[in-house]
C-alpha cells in the first residue's frame, strides 16, 4: 500500500492522471467502507448490544461487517463495546497497535465516550476511550440500540468515503488530550460568571420594568398530579431452616459471651437470648466475634451437624473509619438457615502519610476451611488493605499490583477521582 500512495505526485501531472487517481481512490474507498471487519472485542453491556446487532433481527452482515475476527491483524474496526478500565487500557492499546492499518475505532456507549455512569467518584475507569485510542465515531447511549450502532457504522463509512483518498491517505489521528474535569461544576461556574455580567447589564432595565409593571404576576407552573399510591404493609421474610433463636442458643452454648450485632438496639450491647426472638424474621442472625475466637467459631459453625453452615456465601469488609469489620455470611444449603458473623479489627496506628497505603489490620484466613474464601479475602485485601494471615496466595485480585491505595477505605485518594458535585 505504501507504493500506491507514492503514485499521486507522479500520476497527477500526466494528462488524465487526476481522474485516474480519483477513480482508484473511489474504488479503494468503496471497498474499504463496505467491508469493515470488526474485532471480537467487548467488555461489558454494550457488547451484548453489539452481538444483538449481529443477531438475526438486526443483522450487521447486511453491511458486510459480520466477519468478526478474533485476531486483531485481520480486522479494520474495533468497536469499543463497554467500559474501559485503567487495567484494560494497556491490553487495549496493544490490540489497537496489532491491527493493520487502515484501522478505525468506534466508541460505543457512554462509558467509552466519557466514562458515562462511571465519570464521577471513580478511580478505575478511563474517562473517555479517546484518551488512549484515536476514536473515529462516537455513539452515545447506554447501551446504544443496534440501530444506533448501525447509524454509527454508516457514519464511519461516510467518513471513509469523504475524507480518504490516495492523496490524503489514512493516518492515525490524534488522541483527545483535554483534561477530564468536573464538567458540571465548570458549566455552573462559567454560567455564574455570565450571570454576574448580565445582572449588572440588566439592573437598569429590571428596575424600569418594575416601575412600569407594578402588578406583574409571575408565571405559575402547573404541577403534575402524581398518582397516589397506597401504603402497603411489609410482609416479613419467610426464611426456612432453624430460627434465629435456635441458632443463637446453639452458638451460645459453645461460645458464651458473643454479642449480637444490631445497630438500633444499642451498639453491640445485646447478648440476651430473649431479645433475639423479638427481632423477627427480617433480621438475619448477626453477631460479633473476637479475633482470637474467629477461626474456632468458623470451624464450629461449619462442622457442627446441627448448624451445618457449610457454604461461605460471602466475605466482605466495612470501613468504619476507626475500625474495620470483616463480615462473613454463611449458609446451610441443606437446612436453609444463614448467619452473619463479624470480627472487628481496630486500625493499626501509623503516621497519616502512610495510612492510605499501609496495611492496617490483619486477621487469620478462612481459606483453609472454605476455598471460596480464597478470592473473597483477596478482594478484601485489594479493596481494604486487610491482611489475611496464612492465606496461600495473598495478591491483589482486581487492581494491578502497583496500584496505590485501597479503594474502599474511606480515606482513599486517587488522582483519577472527580468528586461528584452534589
Amino acid at each position, binding site marked *: 500500500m505504501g507504493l500506491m500512495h507514492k503514485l499521486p505526485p507522479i500520476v497527477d501531472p500526466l494528462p488524465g492522471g487526476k481522474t485516474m487517481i480519483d477513480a482508484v481512490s473511489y474504488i479503494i474507498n468503496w471497498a474499504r467502507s463496505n467491508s469493515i471487519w470488526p474485532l471480537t472485542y467487548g467488555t461489558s*453491556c454494550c457488547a451484548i448490544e453489539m452481538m444483538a446487532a449481529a443477531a438475526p433481527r438486526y443483522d450487521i452482515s447486511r453491511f458486510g461487517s459480520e466477519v468478526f475476527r478474533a485476531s486483531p491483524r485481520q480486522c479494520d474496526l474495533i468497536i469499543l463495546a463497554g467500559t474501559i478500565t485503567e487495567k484494560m487500557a494497556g491490553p487495549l492499546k496493544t490490540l489497537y497497535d496489532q491491527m493493520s492499518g487502515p484501522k478505525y475505532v468506534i466508541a460505543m456507549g457512554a462509558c467509552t465516550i466519557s466514562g458515562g*455512569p462511571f465519570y464521577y467518584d471513580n478511580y478505575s475507569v478511563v474517562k473517555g476511550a479517546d484518551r488512549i485510542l484515536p476514536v473515529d465515531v462516537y455513539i452515545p447511549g447506554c447501551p446504544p440500540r443496534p440501530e444506533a450502532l448501525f447509524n454509527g457504522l454508516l457514519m464511519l463509512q461516510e467518513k471513509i468515503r469523504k475524507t480518504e483518498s490516495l492523496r490524503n491517505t489514512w493516518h492515525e489521528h490524534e488522541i483527545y488530550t483535554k483534561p477530564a474535569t468536573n464538567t458540571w461544576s465548570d458549566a455552573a461556574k462559567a454560567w455564574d460568571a455570565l450571570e454576574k455580567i448580565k445582572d449588572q447589564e440588566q439592573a437598569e432595565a429590571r428596575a424600569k420594568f418594575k416601575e412600569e409593571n407594578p402588578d406583574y404576576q409571575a408565571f405559575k407552573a402547573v404541577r403534575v398530579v402524581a398518582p397516589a399510591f397506597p401504603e402497603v404493609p411489609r410482609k416479613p421474610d419467610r426464611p426456612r431452616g432453624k430460627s434465629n433463636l435456635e441458632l443463637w442458643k446453639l452458638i451460645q452454648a459453645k461460645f458464651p459471651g458473643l454479642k449480637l450485632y444490631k445497630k438500633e438496639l444499642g451498639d453491640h450491647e445485646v447478648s440476651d437470648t430473649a431479645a433475639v426472638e423479638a427481632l423477627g424474621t427480617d433480621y438475619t442472625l448477626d453477631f460479633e466475634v473476637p479475633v482470637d475466637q474467629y477461626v474456632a467459631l468458623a470451624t464450629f459453625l461449619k462442622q457442627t451437624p446441627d448448624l451445618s453452615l457449610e457454604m461461605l456465601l460471602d466475605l466482605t469488609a466495612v470501613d468504619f473509619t476507626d475500625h474495620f469489620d470483616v463480615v462473613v455470611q454463611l449458609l446451610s444449603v441443606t437446612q436453609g438457615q444463614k448467619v452473619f458473623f463479624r470480627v472487628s479489627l481496630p486500625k493499626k496506628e501509623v503516621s497519616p502519610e502512610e495510612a492510605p497505603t499501609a496495611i492496617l489490620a490483619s486477621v487469620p484466613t478462612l481459606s483453609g476451611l472454605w476455598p471460596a474464601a480464597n478470592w473473597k479475602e483477596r478482594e478484601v485485601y485489594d479493596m481494604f488493605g486487610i491482611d489475611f494471615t496464612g492465606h496461600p496466595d495473598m495478591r491483589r485480585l482486581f487492581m494491578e499490583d502497583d496500584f496505590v491505595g485501597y479503594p474502599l477505605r474511606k480515606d482513599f485518594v486517587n488522582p483519577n477521582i472527580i468528586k461528584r458535585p452534589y
Partner: protein
Amino acid sequence: MEMVKRPLPAGFQKVSGDDNTEEYFINMGPQHPATHGVLRLVLRLDGETVRECVPHLGYIHRGIEKQAESETYLQYVHLTDRMDYLTSHMNNHSVCMAIEKAVGIGVPDRAEYIRVMVLELNRISSHLMMFGCFGGDLGAQTALLYGFKEREVITDIFDELCGARLTMNYFRPGGVANDIPDTFIARVKKVIVDVERTLEEFDRLITGNVIIQERSRGIGILTREDAIAYGCTGCVLRASGVPYDLRKDDPYSIYDRLDFDVPTKQNGDSFDRYVIHIDEIRQSIRILQQCIEQIPEGPYRSKEKPSYRLPAGSYYAATETAKGIFGTYVVAEKGDKPWRIHSRSPNFANLSPIGKMVKGHMIADVVTVITTLDILIPDIDR
C-alpha cells in the same frame, strides 16, 4: 538453543511434574472470543493438556461499590443494571428488597406479580443467551444466533415495558416504575409459545447432538462437596446435586404462592450444567403461566418516599438470579447515601473453582467449562 529462564507468571506456585515434558504458558484473554468479556486465564499447558489454570480478574473492575457510596439509594439501582446486565431486573430487585426491608415498605400484589413475570422473562432471556453461547463456543455459530433470535423477542417486551433493552432500571422500592402496557400479557403468551418451540429446536440442534455430548459429558466435573465449598450457587450448584434455590428455600416476593420445581442434576459435568438451564426455562414458563392467570388489578407501586433514608444498620437481601444468588449487603449510617454497599455476585463464586475444574482437560474443554459456568465478567469484577 539456549533456554531462557523466565520468572513464573503471577499466581503459579512452582512448576512441578515430569521433567521430560516441556510445559509452557499460554495467555487466554483479556481479549479472547471465548472468555465472555475480559477474563484472563493463564494456562500452564503440556501439549494441549491443561496442567494448571490461574484466572486474573479486574480488567473490568469499575469500582461500583466505591461509587455507590456517593450515590443515593435510588441512583444506585441503575448501577446494578450494569453488573450482570443479562439479569439486570434481578439485580435491581435485590437492591430494592434491601431498601424495602430497611425502610419497611411493602409491595402491592399486582406489583409483585409484575415483578415475578419480569424476573422470569429475564431468567429465560439469560438462559437463552447461555444456550446460544454454549453452542457458539463449541463451534456451532448458528446456535448462538438462534439463542439471540429468541432472546430478542423478550428484549423487545422489555423495550416496550421499561424503555430499554438491556439496562432497564425498572424496579423501585415498593413496586415497579410503571404499569404494564395492555399488550404485555398477550406478548408474554406469545413468548411462551415461541420459547417452547425454540427449546424443541435446541433439543434437536444441540442437546441431541453427539458432538456436543462427547464434548461436554464428563468435562469439568464439579462435585457436590466442591460446589458447596467454593460457594457456587444457581444452576452450577444444582447441576452438582444440591437442590438449593432461593425461590424455594428462602422464598421472597410471591414465589411461595407459585407452583414450580427446582430441577437438579447429579453429575455436575458440563452437560448437566447445560441441560439444567433447559429445565429451568420450562419451570419459568410454568411460573409465567400461573402469573398470567393470577395477576390481580390494583396499584403497581406502594406509596413513594421522596428520598430513601435508611435507618443505621446493616441490611441484606438476596435474589436467585439466572446465575445464582445475588445478594445486596447495605450498611447504612446517616443520610440518604449508603455507608457501604456490597454485592454478593453469583458469578464471582461460580468462576472460582475453574482452576480445579479444568485441570487435566484440554484447551477446548476450558472453553466448554467457561461457557457452562455461564459467567459474566463485569459482575465478577464489579
